């Protein structure tokens, strides 16, 4: 079970993920809500090919950090970069797949599962969705085991199924970097394990993964890096140690 981070350097896909800079980078990022400071001068580099997990207690600022990293929130100080470009750059974002914490899609939306997933490929606003978009969306749905539900309306699916649809949407654009915010919160154990397998396989194919979660969970075996967010700062936790202390180290780091 020992990690072998070196194996990824030899993969062709890992090299293609690298461009002008690390896949994801925070330089001296601070962020504060009205209630107080939550991130204090964070430096973080996630290199192409890594599978990094950021853990932390509830309210530690994990989601805030992730939202700053992908340009959804502007930091009070410092900067966030994707592939060496500012996080707000549309070209950089087009190489990013994002899975939010919870399905934010209203059950009233008159869209099929296939349409929601194909929307993940809309990096350009022009024209109609094409056969290639549909095919990629079907492949992505197959990867999360929902191919048979592609024609259903999104609102008819269970919460866990909707979460898998969002993962498929992120995969549909063949991202170089996958950013996930507690993607399996509220998803049953079997789905979590299936999901961990998908992520592991993608990472082996060269996709960089940056995931925020409450604990290591089912992805423990695929991780190359574990980071713990605590009182606005990040600690590197050796992966082997993190695996041995699953469930224990969180308490240590949550003070």
């Amino acid at each position, binding site marked *: 079970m020992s990690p072998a981070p070196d194996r990824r350097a030899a993969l062709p896909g890992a090299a293609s993920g690298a461009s002008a800079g690390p896949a994801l980078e925070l330089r001296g990022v601070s962020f504060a809500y009205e209630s107080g400071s939550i991130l204090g001068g964070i430096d973080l580099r996630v290199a192409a090919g890594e599978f990094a997990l950021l853990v932390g207690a509830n309210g530690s600022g994990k989601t805030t950090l992730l939202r700053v990293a992908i340009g959804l929130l502007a930091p009070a100080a410092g900067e966030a970069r994707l592939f060496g470009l500012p996080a707000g750059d549309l070209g950089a*974002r087009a190489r990013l797949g*994002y899975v939010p914490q919870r399905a934010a899609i209203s059950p009233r*939306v008159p869209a099929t599962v296939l*349409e929601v997933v194909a929307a*993940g490929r*809309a*990096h350009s*606003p022009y024209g109609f969705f094409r056969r290639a978009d549909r095919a990629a969306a079907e492949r992505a749905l197959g990867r999360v085991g929902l191919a048979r539900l592609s*024609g259903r309306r999104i609102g008819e699916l269970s919460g866990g199924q909707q979460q898998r649809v969002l993962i498929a949407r992120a995969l549909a654009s063949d991202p170089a970097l996958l950013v996930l915010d507690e993607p399996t919160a509220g998803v049953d154990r079997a789905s979590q394990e299936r999901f961990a397998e998908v992520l592991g396989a993608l990472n082996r194919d060269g996709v960089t993964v940056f995931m925020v979660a409450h604990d290591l969970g089912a992805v423990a075996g695929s991780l190359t890096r574990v980071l713990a967010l605590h009182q606005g700062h990040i600690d590197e936790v050796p992966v082997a140690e993190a695996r041995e202390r699953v469930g224990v180290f969180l308490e240590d780091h949550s003070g």
Partner: protein
Amino acid sequence: MSALSLLWPALVAGMLVGAAAPAIGTFVVQKRLSLVGDGLGHIAFAGVAIGLWLGISPLAGALAVAALGGVGIDALRRRNPEEADMVLALFFYGSIATAVVVASLSGTFNVNLFGFLFGQVLTVTPAEMAAIGALALVILAGVAGLYRGLVAAAIDEEAAAVGGLPVRALNVGLMVLAGLTIAVGMQVVGILLVAAMMVIPVGVARNLVRSFRSTLVAASAVGAASAVAGIGIAWRADSAPSGTIVLVAVAAYALASGVRRARGALARRRAGEAA
């Protein structure tokens, strides 16, 4: 002279507006901005009054003011989301007040203005019909040209932004197209009811079909059919066409709602039998 030879400009204009308004409405409703259409109608009213006052085409006045109003609402709503309803209210009532004041000052507070409030589709001339048709085509072309972006942003705006779509520009584009729709539709169903044609056919379609694409197509078909049926009934019954068109759409909604419930009951019964 047969009814058709008299009515054809009205029928063509009604069909075009009936098809274009729900095409924009499908996106507007998804963003929970159903009332924006209504607000833009009020704003267009100010444009009509200003147009009549300046002696330019009321349609041009409505077009300019409604498009600007759409952009303005979007910008203010974004800057201060907690005050969004107040922003809309300010635009609504400020525009109506402007229209009334401008009309009273310019002495156009007359039948002319009244016609724009309640529509005047039966008096649409072939030239007006051509202008309405051209604008309706611009609206449909705008929806077709920006379809990917508009759909992605309507389904999940945040995910669309993260995926690299210029969501703000798309929202502005949608508001401009909505403003155009209002200005074009006001001649057919009037300022007070034009928003209904953006919203109600979408509600009908949403009850009947599953996908976004089918919703858009079905809503446009329902809108066009409501316009034709409404104008026909109004001609026979000598009722106001604008109100009749909207009542046909409301009846279609009630029918579609019943169909959805019946389908649901049938599916549950089948599931019960299978179990």
